[in-house]
């Protein structure tokens, strides 16, 4: 639905809008929050949200929507905020995005909608992420989410994995009248949203509420099912009668650096470190049974420069670490983490050791980590990723004393589904081959999207793949054409 013909509801002229400053996100004080898992960003008030919404220039050709992986009608939802119709704004977002309270918090808006905002040519871009978060939270507080009623189609879809892509497919298809069942390997629904992203960035209660809403829409969930082991894709289709299957199993196996000492006690993968904290609530030990190493007064480092690395090290700080380092082999400019997260981490006192890489983990002789032997790097010629390749500086070795090191250098494909599904082709890195437009795999009726197709990416890119898959699945189910 286009809104270009409508008269603007914004009382300000474009010149006046540019003069309104971008409204700051209220934050918990950096010193206080560095010791607790409560959320860093506190969210806009209705007043702040309406003030910010006034800044939208209501472009005739909104580049924000073009740059949103799920295609949210930003201009329309922002206009509804201007007139105080917050629930209307939420409903508008929900047409394109089933997890607005999540994406409003974790999307890299600066690279997407806000990155292309016309305002940013002169002033700061519109706070689209903050506004999305505001209306999603408002809707949640009001408890008035409308559950759409749809005519059942009689078709059944199985979704493998309950992370961002799977939930998006489920949310879109249930609204088309298909029966949807989501299979999850872990005991909790949400995938990376519950095991990976920490409470201070994405409160688990928010995730639970979004999932409760999907339950209310009729989505069925089954936990403790490792597809490929507990049941295969073929069995889901042939024996359980699913008409289509979507595979969204996520990032997979953590990578290690293959340097000496990686097996020492105290060396974690980021996945394990974060899973212990987020999913298993090890930080509440002994009230929760899953243990983790006591970080109080300890020196901790994370190796890597992505969002996962920052999530891990900021968690370590909150668990009492004395020194908390980020060790990254390139410079600030190449860091893949979101600018806001880097800024937050700096405020909290994280020590960034840029252009540095560990070459060995040292032990006390009894199997426990005592230090990382590191080298300083300098940037050489660009590599395959287009980023300048880090090269070790001769004679720059030094030992950084550490009790815990967390390796956050990426993941490789988990082979369980691929290896148990005949005819499902993978690329040479082991990820599932799927069409970029339709997310169709090489197996009829089987679709895939998210990190299991692309390798590690972001929540919103996985959701974008989920949207495309849902459209394509619906088309397949209604036409029968593969």
């Amino acid at each position, binding site marked *: 639905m286009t809104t270009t013909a409508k008269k603007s509801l914004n009382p300000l002229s474009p010149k006046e809008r540019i003069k309104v400053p971008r409204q700051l996100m209220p934050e918990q004080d950096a010193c206080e929050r560095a010791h607790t898992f409560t959320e860093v960003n506190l969210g806009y008030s209705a007043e702040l949200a309406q003030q910010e919404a006034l800044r939208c220039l209501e472009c005739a050709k909104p580049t924000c929507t073009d740059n949103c992986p799920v295609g949210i009608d930003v201009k329309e939802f922002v206009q509804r905020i201007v007139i105080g119709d917050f629930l209307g704004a939420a409903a508008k977002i929900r047409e394109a995005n089933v997890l607005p309270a999540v994406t409003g918090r974790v999307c890299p808006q600066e690279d997407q909608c806000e990155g292309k905002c016309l305002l940013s040519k002169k002033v700061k871009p519109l706070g689209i992420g903050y506004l999305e978060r505001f209306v999603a939270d408002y809707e949640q507080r009001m408890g008035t989410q409308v559950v759409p009623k749809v005519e059942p189609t009689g078709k059944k879809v199985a979704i493998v994995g309950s992370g961002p892509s799977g939930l998006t497919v489920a949310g879109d298809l249930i609204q088309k009248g298909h029966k949807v069942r989501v299979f999850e390997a872990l005991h909790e629904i949400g995938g990376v949203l519950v095991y990976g992203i920490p409470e201070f960035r994405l409160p688990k209660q928010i995730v639970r509420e979004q999932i409760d809403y999907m339950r209310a829409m009729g989505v069925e969930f089954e936990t403790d099912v490792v597809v490929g082991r507990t049941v295969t894709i073929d069995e889901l289709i042939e024996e359980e009668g699913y008409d289509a299957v979507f595979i969204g199993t996520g990032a997979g196996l953590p990578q290690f650096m293959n340097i000496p000492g990686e097996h020492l006690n105290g060396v974690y993968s980021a*996945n394990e470190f974060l899973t212990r904290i987020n999913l298993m609530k090890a930080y509440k030990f002994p009230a929760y049974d899953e243990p983790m190493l006591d970080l109080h007064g300890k020196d901790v480092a994370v190796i890597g420069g992505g969002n996962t690395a920052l999530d891990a090290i900021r968690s370590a700080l909150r668990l009492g670490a004395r020194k908390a380092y980020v060790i990254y082999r390139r410079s600030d400019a190449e860091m893949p983490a979101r600018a806001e997260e880097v800024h937050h981490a700096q405020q909290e006192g994280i020590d960034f050791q840029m252009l540095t890489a560990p070459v060995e983990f040292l032990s006390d002789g009894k199997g426990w980590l005592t230090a990382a032997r590191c080298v300083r790097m300098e940037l050489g010629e660009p590599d395959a990723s287009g980023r300048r390749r880090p090269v070790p500086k001769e004679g720059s070795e030094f030992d950084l004393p550490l009790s815990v090191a967390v390796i956050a250098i990426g993941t490789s494909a988990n082979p369980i589904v691929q290896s148990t599904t005949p005819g499902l082709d993978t690329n040479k890195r082991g990820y599932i081959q799927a069409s970029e437009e339709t997310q169709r795999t090489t197996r009829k009726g089987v679709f895939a999207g998210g990190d299991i197709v692309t390798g590690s990416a972001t929540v919103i890119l996985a959701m974008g793949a989920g949207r495309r898959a849902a459209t394509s699945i619906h088309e397949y189910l209604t036409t029968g054409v593969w």
Partner: protein
Amino acid sequence: MFKIIHAQFLAPGIKRFVIEAPRIARKQKPGQFVILRIYEEGERIPVTIENSDPEKGTINIVVQAAGKTTTLLNSLETGDSILDVVGPLGKPSEIANYGTVVVVGGGVGTAMAYPTAAALKRAGNRVISIVGARNKELVILEPEMRGVSDAVMITTDDGSYADKGFVTDKLRQLIQNGTRIDLVVAVGPIVMMKAVSELTRRENIHTVVSLNPIMIDGTGMCGGCRVMIDGKSEFACVDGPEFDGHKVNFEVLVQRNAMYRTAEQLSMEEFKRSREADHACQATSPEMQGAQR
């Protein structure tokens, strides 16, 4: 929720549970395991599958009480439920007709060795089983092992039953007697698997061991269960749990399994204290029972 259809002690501290888990029962193969979580605040632990009945939709697990979770698990009875059971996990044992196979089960490891022995027997192997335990009471599944083996040898550390000694003594005897052994499968305590592997390495007998590192998800996602195989990291949950015993770095396994010893002890002490408090509570005010876990 996964219902316990039947619970029964096999030995002091070792209990067998028959659990309603139809999906797992259909798929379980020898050598695989499940991960379970008893209640909301509980940890996830890997547990041996001893057997399954696809018709009835049940699996049997055998649990030895060691820490808090296993002690709590062993206090569950017929009719109780377990919050989460996921599996079957890990690669199944490689079953083929090797010729003569010696299956070694140490302590509660016998429960995992049993289905493998049975499958090897069905595949046409001559199966010689060696079952070891600390004492007579802790020898488990003897009749089951006899049912699937051509010969069964039993050792107890203290000599209270069968022959005094270790499983390696029996294995050495077999080798010395000139028995042609094509494969050894050993499941049990790390020290036992290490001793068996050292013995068979000298004799150049292919040996498979089943490793039991600390795990969380069991699907390869966390990497916590990494073990050193031939100098390289592998994940026991997806690459194992069975590995070539001659390539396993057992020292690293022992060291990594000790990672949370302090926490585990603390957890156990707190648990014991709360249990004692529970008992005191029940003795004085029965109406308080509902407030206790």
